[in-house]
């Protein structure tokens, strides 16, 4: 039986004609369902690149990425979008909320192409907001929320389609340590609830929550620590 998430000899070259910088060089990776993996490494080591490739946000220059046995490179653009929607929840360091939408509306965005009734969508958004501890702030714009609250909204948005995998790229990078801890508690809770979590982080203090650390150096896996 294949692993839940598998990378086989994945390389990523940035830049076209002329200087091509390798961000990833021949990565092999295998992650089981329900793991909580922390990806560490120096800035520029290729952590974000690895995560976006896993999330189907970009395509590697070579190598194969299999999630639940499906090779992402075999998917059409539309199927890849469906895969992102159904399987992956992506959380960015900079939240990437739409600034002109309220907290509730931001959470409803991933549901907007769907035919579900507006009422159901709103109810789903509200229950997600409650689950990340933001009841009563449904009508706030991102500019009216603190950084930690914005990240909670972003996490709630990532959970809309109940994905099995959460990919978080330095989710606490913009937050003070107390707020960061609360966000990490939230991830621990999600992990306990059965999500597979892959998180890029700088902070080694986070490690105790994880089941495994993958350390990258110069686009290679330097060390895997279970």
């Amino acid at each position, binding site marked *: 039986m294949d692993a839940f998430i598998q990378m086989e000899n994945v390389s990523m070259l940035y830049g076209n004609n002329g200087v091509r910088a390798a961000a990833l060089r021949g990565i092999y990776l295998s992650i089981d369902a329900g793991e909580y993996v922390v990806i560490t490494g120096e800035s520029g080591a290729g952590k974000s690149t690895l995560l*976006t490739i896993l*999330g189907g*946000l*970009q*395509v590697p220059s070579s190598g194969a990425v299999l999630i639940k046995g499906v090779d992402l490179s075999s998917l059409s*653009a*539309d199927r890849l*979008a*469906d895969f*992102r*929607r*159904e399987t992956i929840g*992506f959380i*960015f360091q900079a939240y*990437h909320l*739409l600034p*002109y*939408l309220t907290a509730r*509306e931001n959470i*409803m*965005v*991933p*549901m*907007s*192409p769907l035919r579900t009734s*507006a009422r159901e*969508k*709103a109810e789903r958004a509200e229950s997600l907001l409650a689950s990340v501890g933001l009841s009563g702030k449904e009508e706030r714009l991102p500019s009216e929320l603190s950084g930690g609250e914005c990240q909670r909204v972003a996490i709630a*948005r*990532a959970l*809309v*389609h109940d994905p099995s995998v959460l990919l978080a790229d330095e989710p606490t990078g913009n937050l003070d340590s107390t707020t960061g801890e609360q966000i990490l508690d939230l991830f621990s809770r999600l992990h306990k609830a059965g999500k597979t979590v892959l998180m890029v982080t700088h902070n080694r203090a986070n490690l105790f929550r994880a089941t495994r650390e993958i350390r990258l150096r110069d686009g290679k896996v330097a060390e895997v620590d279970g």
Partner: protein
Amino acid sequence: MNIRKLAWKNLFRRKSRAVFMGLGIFLGIGTFVALASLTAQMEQAVQDKLDRFGANILITPRTEQLSLGFGDISLGGTQVAHSRLTTADEKAIRGIEMKERLRSVVPFFLAAADASGKNLVWMGVPAMEIVAARPWWKISGSPIREKGEVLLGSEVSAALDKGPGGTVVSGGRTFLVTGVLHPTGEKEDGMIIASIGEVRSLAGNFRGVTFFEVAALCKDCPVEEIVAQIGDALPGARVSAIRQVVESRKAAVDQFRRLGLGVSAIVLAIGGLMVFVTVMGSVQERTKEIGVLRAVGFRRRAILSLLFWETGWVSLLSSVSGAFIGVAAAMLAAPLFGVEKAEAAFSPALLGVAIGIVLGLLGTVPPARRAAALSPTEAIRSL
């Protein structure tokens, strides 16, 4: 929330951007509509002016061998013998099917009669119609208004050695000369012009008409049609279009129409470019947002329909208001361009709205496709 609502929210919350995009469309379409409807009105005004410029249909008795000029009229004795048309015919002319097209029907009566000892041709016209029927006449003195007044052709004035204020005696009556025509190069230089009733009574023919001049309103110029209808109404008459008048009128209007089309085409190209560029710019600005939407699972088609809804709304609203303002501006500006009664022209407005929407949507496609073709990561990184 669905795509349409998301589009609407985006527009509403990012008002200044929406307004900026709309402004480009508004100005482009407004200018196009203003110029297009102004030229349409000017074309109409040129048409109207030409229509006012004299008659374009001549009605003469069929049986006489008359040319269109006056020179070949045989004037035997003191009476014109061939006056087969009568005042009753005017009613028949005005009763044709296209009677609304007839702007004026002017009877003329020509007769030879004595004038202070010389045998001259008298031209009788209803006094009130003279200015309309012969707008090109220049008169020293004033036109005739009452009975007992005459105008002298320039040659007559010289031959009789009479000018404004002088008198002419005929049939035992004395006529006051109110004015003298500047030379026209036409036969009337050798005629005395008086009110038609006076000439008839000098000739002893009280219902006679030598010929009618008809001025038909010439929009789309169905002159042949009008000629045929008058011919049917007056079987004894020869009805002919004064082709030269019709043709030159058409030529002038056509020329103006071509000018208008040319101007509109240029303005449309510029306005269209403005629409295109503003829409492209505002979609390009949103590349990052498009990346985020793709990251949360939007298919490309969902992105395209989101952007289409947005630009669709903006281009609809701004082209409608642009068209509205354009029509209003054309109405206000019309008097400056010699249009006397300005009328709202709706076809340029409709065309403008259609063009605004189409261009808005077209302007969406290239940047939207480009944004959707980027990987979400690249799109999010873009600034």
